[in-house]
């Protein structure tokens, strides 16, 4: 039985000798796009692989469509379309041959959709996979992932290596997918401008831990950049900001409560809306906290 979210992750842990994914929790409701953001090595890909059951978790629970990917791996994966950050298929086979191998494994495979997407992505199906550029490899992986009526599309850095025109078209395609209100998308990226266009929820992960997982509009409403003189910092309690950069003449900082900052600091500082890029930069960057 499906619970409230198409994907529910609770207290997920995975231990490596030099890295630990700790207590990762988030929920993706049906029919929405969630962006999973964070710096390289933060744990994004590990989280996605755990969701697919490609890695074994040490603790926590995952429910995709109400099912555990470890216990019901075949069913869960048949309802997921996945794109790797570095797509690898059989280099010596043509795209048609590669697709034919995959198609038989999905009961809901739609060859017309695959051909339509291949045409839209300007893929030559007679070409061998090994002859494709990185961008075209990603396009092929996307065409496969979107051709079996997946209810959950999981994309690991799909837009890196793609030209801006195709990136825009891809984002439009993903938005179109949501029109049926049954498909959800989990989209890992470090190109936050893509997420500002299409995401409904943002989950920020850093050093294997969730920093926040919230609705994008709420983040853009509450988080703000504060700019002011160094003397104004003296009156503030430690750790007042989520991130801070001190300059020679002033400071620039990130707050997660714009209303409270405006009430407290008034017109003595400049407060402006933060972009997702600002949020990532300040929460994961090298700026010292106050």
């Amino acid at each position, binding site marked *: 039985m499906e619970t409230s979210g198409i994907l529910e992750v609770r207290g997920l842990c995975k231990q490596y000798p030099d890295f630990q994914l700790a207590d990762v929790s988030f929920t993706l409701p049906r029919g929405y796009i969630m962006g999973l953001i964070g710096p390289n090595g933060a744990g994004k890909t590990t989280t996605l*692989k755990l969701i*697919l*059951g*490609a*890695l*074994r978790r040490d603790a926590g629970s995952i429910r995709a469509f109400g099912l555990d990917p470890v216990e019901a*791996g*075949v*069913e869960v*994966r*048949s309802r*997921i379309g*996945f794109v*790797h950050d570095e*797509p*690898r*298929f*059989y*280099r*010596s*086979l043509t795209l048609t*041959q590669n697709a034919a*191998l*995959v198609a*038989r*494994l*999905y009961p809901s495979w739609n060859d017309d959709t695959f051909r339509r997407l291949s045409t839209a992505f300007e893929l030559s199906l007679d070409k061998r996979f090994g002859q494709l550029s990185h961008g075209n490899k990603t396009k092929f992986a996307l065409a496969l992932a979107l051709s079996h009526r997946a209810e959950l599309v999981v994309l690991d850095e799909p837009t890196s290596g793609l030209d801006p025109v195709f990136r825009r078209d891809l984002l439009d395609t993903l938005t179109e997918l949501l029109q049926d209100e049954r498909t959800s998308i989990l989209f890992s990226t470090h190109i936050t401008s893509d997420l500002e266009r299409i995401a409904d929820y943002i989950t920020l992960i850093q050093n294997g831990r969730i920093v926040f997982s919230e609705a994008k509009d709420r983040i853009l409403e509450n988080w703000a950049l504060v700019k002011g003189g160094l003397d104004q910092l003296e009156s503030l309690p430690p750790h007042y900001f989520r991130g801070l950069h001190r300059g020679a003449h002033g400071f620039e900082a990130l707050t997660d409560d714009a209303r409270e900052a405006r009430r407290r600091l008034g017109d003595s500082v400049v407060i402006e809306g933060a972009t997702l890029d600002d949020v990532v930069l300040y929460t994961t960057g090298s700026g010292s906290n106050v």
Partner: protein
Amino acid sequence: MTEAILRNWIPLRRDLILHRRTLVLVAVMYTAFQAWFVTSFNNPMVWLVFNCIYFSFLTVTPLTADEKTQTLPWLCTLPVTRADLVRGRYVTSWALVLALYAVSVALAALMPGSDISPVWMLGPDRLLLVAGVVTFIIALLLPFTIRFGFTGMLLTLVAAQVLGGVMLVVAKITGGDLGSGISAAVGILREGIFALRGSLGVLGFQLALLVVLFLANWASYRASVWLFRRREF
């Protein structure tokens, strides 16, 4: 039943498509080999044992392609279980061995002056010998190949070579006669088999051997699944 056949056919077909070039190359090489063997040796028993060893290595080697193309992580995100992927390897190996055996018997019989008779080669005892030799190699190699890829297969073979080398050295140091020791061991095994055959009857012995070979393959398959499930990508 249909579903089970289809589930095995999908990975088998995948592997056959994937290795079609290798298979064509092997077929051409093998035809040339048949001509050479028949004109040079023309000994049915040597032919049988040599071919079984040859087929087993041939079928295991191309199955490491997913390691070379680094496609295993992707395969593990498809709607198949790890057991399905492993079973595909076993089914492919056995299907290739059987196909190669049938084709090579026909080829060898067709060579002018050949002493290799298809009727003799397809007799129950010879088929059980084929199954025994192939089981010994495949059941030993596949778990290591599935867990460690081509390196695993090589390491297994190297380990066997090292073991042989160590035995030779030990025999030399202790003044033992390794050749006689091996002959004695083979003799004991042979006598044991004949005794068992005598007590069970020919048909009973053949059935028992078939069951043992099946169990050996099953145990190897289960070990491979266990090892493959422990791999993380």
